[in-house]
């Protein structure tokens, strides 16, 4: 008997309060939207194979990259790790039976679905072509596409995210098992705590910005309209006040995954636990004071540019604390190369490149040269795809045995990890070069001398596509034919690994008492010896 078999029927899933089932619902839905967004990315790369705009008209191209961005950011990246792996494992890691607010958790999934349907509906009925940033006055005055319905869709998706974050914060504060002190929490929980703060404080500002866009378009209130004295730049301030922290909402949970995976597969406590924990919080705090670096060329004052440039570079400090500490965790560890670890290595390499190029863009001088070019595109894809998606796949493989009770096939998934890594680099590394050479983003056509690098990029995208399709196939296969996993296939120390797989509906037969530090592999060995002794 486990959470999957306890009740049957569609209704038992649609009305469930169980965080594990809601996580599965989320996993299915975000995977769907990932492949919708991914297909749009495929179309973009296909169009850019040739210098002319020949596959689609330029305004169709605008719609395709806009919908790609909107779907990937709001319907995949923001909920990706938190709403699936976080939802499933935060209660188990802290020794609780469920999240504090199960109904709110379910409501968040329904809001997500409502948002998804609205955005899909918009896409089918003609799409939106403002880019995912809804920049004014383009979005309010100059385009004639479905800005209002898309904006409302994103607004609703925002509430889904707020509820997830709020639920996590309450759960981590109030539901920890006896003995589970703040500094015994797995770092996965710390990074989700930091991301949740961003969700709760940032998302409402995006919500009001979108409400104002909708009002401006429908009623014409003038708040972003210069002819009535409004300021289009105000929208950018409101939008980026959320949307810059949002990139930390996207990356922080991924960093949490990497901490767990790196520790487990080097069989060492994470080096500098406290520093890694506080670096998550530091990223969340700094993250709120860097938004104007998206506006360096948009006429904000020179002093603001200076200050925001400095603050932006400061975010690199806590990020590199993490990278260095993971490296030190590996040092003299007993490293093994299972699939989650391969993805984690991918993350560390690609995120480092993505993060470092972020410093180039934070430096206002180089930013003026590089902004609105493919350099930007390459930079945030290194962080979001090379970083977050790698972390998501790493976590998915790592916890798959616990979620389903079955192992994924190791050899082919290692292959998929390598294919993803190669495909990713082939797709996005040429874009750094294209950007420095001056190829602008968001155009369907480009000068012929850029073609060779674009061909590389498109070829890489095809490899990447294979890398993403493989897990869908073998993970589905493993649901029925995978090896039975057992309770703790990785010999990991988290509380979630000490109970049966798949877990019971209420996670633990009785609430555990945490009597050791996090990542205490000696404790785990002693436990095993005790068990052997008691059986013998």
């Amino acid at each position, binding site marked *: 008997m486990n959470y999957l078999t306890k009740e049957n029927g569609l209704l038992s899933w649609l009305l469930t309060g169980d965080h594990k089932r809601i996580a599965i619902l989320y996993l299915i839905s975000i995977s769907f939207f990932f492949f919708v967004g991914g297909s749009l990315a495929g179309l973009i790369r296909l169009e850019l194979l040739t210098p002319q705009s020949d596959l689609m008209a330029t305004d169709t191209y605008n719609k395709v990259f806009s919908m790609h961005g909107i779907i990937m950011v709001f319907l995949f990246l923001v909920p990706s790790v938190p709403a699936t792996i976080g939802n499933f494992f935060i209660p188990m890691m802290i020794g609780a*039976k469920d999240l504090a607010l199960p109904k709110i958790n379910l409501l968040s999934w329904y809001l997500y679905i409502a948002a998804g349907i609205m955005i899909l509906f918009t896409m089918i009925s003609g799409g939106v072509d403002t880019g995912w940033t809804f920049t004014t006055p383009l979005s309010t005055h100059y385009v004639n596409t479905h800005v209002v319905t898309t904006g409302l869709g994103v607004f609703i998706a925002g509430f889904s995210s707020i509820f997830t974050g709020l639920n996590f914060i309450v759960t981590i504060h109030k539901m920890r098992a006896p003995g589970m002190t703040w500094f015994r929490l797995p770092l996965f929980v710390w990074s989700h705590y930091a991301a949740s703060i961003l969700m709760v404080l940032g998302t409402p500002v995006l919500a009001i910005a979108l409400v104002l866009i909708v009002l401006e378009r429908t009623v014409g209130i003038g708040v972003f309209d210069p002819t009535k004295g409004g300021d289009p730049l105000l929208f950018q301030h409101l939008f980026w006040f959320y949307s810059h922290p949002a990139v930390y909402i996207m990356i922080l949970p991924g960093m949490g995954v990497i901490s767990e995976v790196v520790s487990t597969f080097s069989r060492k406590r994470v080096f500098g636990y406290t520093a890694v924990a506080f670096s998550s919080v530091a990223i969340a705090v700094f993250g709120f004071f860097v938004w104007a670096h998206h506006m360096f060329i948009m006429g904000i004052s020179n002093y603001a540019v200076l200050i925001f440039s400095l603050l932006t570079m400061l975010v690199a400090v806590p990020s590199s604390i993490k990278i260095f500490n993971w490296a030190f965790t590996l040092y003299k560890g007993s490293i093994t190369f299972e699939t989650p670890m391969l993805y984690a290595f991918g993350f560390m390499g690609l995120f480092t490149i993505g993060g470092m190029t972020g410093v180039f863009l934070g430096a206002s001088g180089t930013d003026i040269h590089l902004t609105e070019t493919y350099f930007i595109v390459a930079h945030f894809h290194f962080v979001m795809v090379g970083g977050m998606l790698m972390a998501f796949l790493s976590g998915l493989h790592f916890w798959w045995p616990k979620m389903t009770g079955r192992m994924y096939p190791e050899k082919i998934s290692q292959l998929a990890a390598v294919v993803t890594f190669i495909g990713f680099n082939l797709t996005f590394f040429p874009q750094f070069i294209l950007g420095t050479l001056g190829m602008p983003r968001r155009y369907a056509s480009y000068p012929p001398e850029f073609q060779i690098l674009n061909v590389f990029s498109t070829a890489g995208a095809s490899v990447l596509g294979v890398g993403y399709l493989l897990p869908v196939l073998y993970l589905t296969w493993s649901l029925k034919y995978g090896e039975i996993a057992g309770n703790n296939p990785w010999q990991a120390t988290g509380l979630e690994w000490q109970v049966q797989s798949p877990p019971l509906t209420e996670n633990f037969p009785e609430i555990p008492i945490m009597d050791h530090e996090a990542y205490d592999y000696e404790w785990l060995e002693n436990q095993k010896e005790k068990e052997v002794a008691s059986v013998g």
Partner: protein
Amino acid sequence: MSDSTAVAHGAAEAHHEHPPYQRHHFETYAQQNDATNFAMWLFLLTEIMFFGGLFTAYLIYRNWYYPAFVQGSHQLQIGWGTANTAVLITSSFTMAMGVWSAEMRRKGLLVLFLVLTFLLGLVFLGIKTIEYHEKYEKHHIPGFHYSVQSFVDPASDPEVYNEYHDKPLPLDMARHTELYFFLYFAMTGMHALHMIIGIAILGFMIFRARAGAYTTGHVTFVENFGLYWHFVDIVWIFLFPLLYLISRHQ
């Protein structure tokens, strides 16, 4: 934590069984109450951030277009605003008394205070409707055949003119009154929307309270709704001076 819930919690522990309103995933009722209360405070934090966007816009545009904001503000009837402030503060008092009655497990009193809060909420909305209607008649609804007549030629609006003797604004400044009225409608409208949601929940609560749902020691819902109601009240306490009281006496 009130005395009554502490008692309920203590009794539950003594008998090793849970009160019926304790959800299965909480260890104790105290934990449940703590968690839901904390969640409500966090939710109110998101509300502050939500209204924060509008307050930011207000701050910037008021700074840029001060004369337009002064004359726009003169169009509001300070009497109605004051009356509404009084109504809301009273409703916060009745709501607080409602929470107290729930904690004291006095059903009749709880229903009475909830009904009073409900009615005061309706009075507030009624007065707001009167004010909105007046704006409609004077063509002061932004984006909706908006007219700057009262600002380029204040004498044409004798009621306001006799009180404030405003000088005519140049046309480009007068046009910015539309931004003032947009902020007025957006901020009070968003506030009114929160009132409507609150009143709807109050209606639901009155029925539940009559059935005795909140007077058995399970006061969390009433308590959390009280927090929400006070929050909406506090938003108005900021809106009233910001919108009604700009430079009344120069």
